[in-house]
């Protein structure tokens, strides 16, 4: 439904995104993830036909965003990050205006606007001036204008930013309910949001795609091992040795001490191999007190941190490599 190929956007000398490629299948909700300033909004603005790319191509709903912009625009709903709305308009007339501009036929418009207001829980606010609405309601009006024409593709730029926890839950539920009939790409830097809403994820950092795919697969790819956290009251050295000796364990690291005799360890084993039983047996045999034993779930957050941190250290390494020849020369001169 969305195909992005080698998309590049430069603002003068600044490269916002370079060589970005990804695809989103119909009916999928994909999270577009990245730290602030990574190029999420730029990519979404190009997909929404707000501005053209410097290079590469993007197709939305089968049409090229640059050459067939009108066709694309008829099939998308867009919510920019800042949720720009006309403060001097009232909610219902505003949505009616959007529906009309987006080509909802006159006969269907009234019902469509009413449906969308119900769905976004803003029916009570329909007579209010938009500028008097709270942030949460503005966000919902923004979402309502995106879906009012029932578009095939929704492009939502940070749809839950700045909301209180309850509103976040409501908006998420709303977005989740859009899956299936709509293809959704939503950007965020809140990771649990992606795990909750999205089937797939595209991670972007410094203007380039660093990982993409289904969340489970990414987690597996970046964390091939399963981890168990153990807290034992007993001799540290013996415990470390004992844990290492368990079959299937690929690594044990001491992660801290809680008091004199209490040690914490993180035990890594091959994925799919559960070593908790053996750890218990070991502790029982040695008469150590097992205070805690729990499986550590690998989260998207850790994947993300690893990728972004990895990128950063790579960048530093390449900088160091560039500096190195110079250092070698001065060394030789001595």
């Amino acid at each position, binding site marked *: 439904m969305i195909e992005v190929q080698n998309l590049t956007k430069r603002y003068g000398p600044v490269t916002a995104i370079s060589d970005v490629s990804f695809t989103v299948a119909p009916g999928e909700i994909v999270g577009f993830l990245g730290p602030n300033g990574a190029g999420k909004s730029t990519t979404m603005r190009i997909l929404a036909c*707000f501005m053209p790319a410097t290079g590469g191509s993007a197709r939305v709903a089968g049409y090229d965003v640059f050459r067939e912009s009108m066709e694309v625009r008829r099939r998308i709903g867009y919510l920019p990050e800042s949720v720009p709305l006309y403060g001097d308009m009232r909610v219902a007339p505003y949505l009616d*205006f959007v529906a009309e501009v987006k*080509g909802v036929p006159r006969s269907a418009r009234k019902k469509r606007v009413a449906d969308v207001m119900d769905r976004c829980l803003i029916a009570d606010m329909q007579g209010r001036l938009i500028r008097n609405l709270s942030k949460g309601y503005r966000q919902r009006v923004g979402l309502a204008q995106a879906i009012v024409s029932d578009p095939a593709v929704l492009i939502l730029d940070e749809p839950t930013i700045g909301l209180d926890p309850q509103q976040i839950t409501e908006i998420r539920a709303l977005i989740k309910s859009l899956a299936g009939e709509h293809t959704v790409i939503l950007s965020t830097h809140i990771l649990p949001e992606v795990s909750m809403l999205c089937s797939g994820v595209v991670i972007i950092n410094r203007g380039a795609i660093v990982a993409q795919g289904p969340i489970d697969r990414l987690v597996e790819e970046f964390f091939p091992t399963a981890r168990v956290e153990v807290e034992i009251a007993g001799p540290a050295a013996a415990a470390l040795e004992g844990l290492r000796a368990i079959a299937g364990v690929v690594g044990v690291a001491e992660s801290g001490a809680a008091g004199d005799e209490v040690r914490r360890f993180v035990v890594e084993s091959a994925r799919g191999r559960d070593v908790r039983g053996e750890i218990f047996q070991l502790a029982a045999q040695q008469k150590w007190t097992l205070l805690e034993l729990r499986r550590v779930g690998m989260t998207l957050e850790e994947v993300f941190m690893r990728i972004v941190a990895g990128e950063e250290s790579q960048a530093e390494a390449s900088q160091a490599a560039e500096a190195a020849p110079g250092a070698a020369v001065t060394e030789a001169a001595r």
Partner: protein
Amino acid sequence: MRIWPIYKKELRLYFTSPVAYIVLTIFLFLTGIFFSAIFSGFTRASMQVAMNPQMGRDLNVTDSVLRPLLGNMSIILLFLLPLVTMRLFAEERRSGTIELLLTYPVRDGAVLIGKYVAALTLYGAMLAGTLAFPAMLAYFTRVEWAPFATGYLGLLLMGAMFLAVGLFISSLTENQIVAAIVTMGILLALWIVSWMADFVPSPYGAVLTHLSIIEHNDTFAKGVLDTKDVIYYLDFTALALFLTLRSLEARRWNG
């Protein structure tokens, strides 16, 4: 082309904010003052003529009331019409709503025309309000309607040009005040540019004269419909609208 919804939206925004009411009120108030002053002056002059007939050979409603009234209205419009157009693009840009507007399935041209025609409609309402003055005149005296018609056509064309220039300037900035002041500056400069005509070398002097609004403004009120003047206003309007379209396009490319 989906001009209609854009037009409706702009008109709605004019009348939900106080701008339209204030501009209408101030315009009618000021033109009312001018009308009373000019008409009172005309009445007194007529009385003097009644006592001293040979003085009054040139006294007529068209020259003594209509021309000064329309002249003064033009000056007021020069300062008020930039306030009508200042919001149109600057506010969309400041609040970011332009990002949504330009991703809806409407062409930039339709957005432009919708906004422009909405401004023209408000201006039409302003002019319609002043039709009370000729109506009053007609009650007291015999009025030549042809100069009135051409005079109002002239005002309409001039206002159309002011609005187009204002729309263009509004598309260049995020700040409504800047848009209004720059538009006023440009219009005022165009108004008085012919004053320089005598002081520059010959071909340029003629150009300056032709560029000046003054040179094209008074003929309509005399009842003369000169294609040269009509084309001046239409050309300027078309140029300003074309530049606005280009400016919208340029903004897209620059993000």
